[in-house]
């Protein structure tokens, strides 16, 4: 189950999706907008996605990590989010907690590494795309 939406997201549909009689462990990761980043105050995070590819990439990740025993679900919200809003939820179920924790961890790690979603931080010092300044070639630094 993969969801990309402008609306608030909640854990209940994901928990329902991964629930199995054979699954004794369900791990959940909830990513929430925090009030600071690297010491800077954050008031708003503006998420945008390359929607069709983001959905396809999330489907590919779930397909890669899913097994007969492990069931996964993920929901990501885009648009303007404020401090405390939920940006992403990952759920993984498995017969035992070790596999559930491991699968949930892999799921959020792969999503953060691969899914074409970006966020612009807004704070007292202005707005900028997270990760973009660091993406400048090291040889090009002048300041």
């Amino acid at each position, binding site marked *: 189950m993969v969801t990309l939406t402008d609306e608030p997201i909640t854990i209940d549909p994901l928990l329902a999706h991964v629930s199995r009689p054979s699954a004794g462990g369900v791990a959940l990761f909830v*990513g929430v907008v925090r009030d600071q980043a690297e010491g800077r105050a954050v008031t708003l995070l503006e*998420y*945008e*996605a*390359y929607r*069709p*590819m*983001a959905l*396809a990439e999330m489907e590919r990740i779930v397909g890669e990590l899913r097994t007969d025993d492990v069931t996964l679900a993920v929901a*990501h919200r885009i648009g303007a989010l404020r401090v405390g809003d939920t*940006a*992403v939820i990952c759920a993984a179920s498995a017969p035992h907690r070790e596999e559930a924790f491991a699968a949930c961890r892999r799921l*959020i790690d792969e*999503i*953060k*590494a*691969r*899914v*074409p*979603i*970006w*966020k*612009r931080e807004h704070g007292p010092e202005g707005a900028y*795309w*997270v*990760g*973009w300044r*660091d*993406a*400048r*070639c090291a040889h*090009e630094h002048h300041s």
Partner: protein
Amino acid sequence: MSVRLLAFAGARDAIGAAELALSLTEPTTARSLLARLCREHPALAPYESSIRLAVNGTYAAWEDPIHDGDEVALIPPVAGG
């Protein structure tokens, strides 16, 4: 031959457009297309080594050929979650 170029986040700001129609007059790979864009849009050039290309919704390998009608996207470092 022409392709539709999409640019997101910082890459969109650097080229000043979310979408461009590009004409290609010679065989083009993902790598040579990004190199051309960095020549045409100097603000993009410092980020060349950090940007990935997606073709028709899938990450491309650098040697992948670009075909007429492809949808090519500039993917700056992603920041979901």
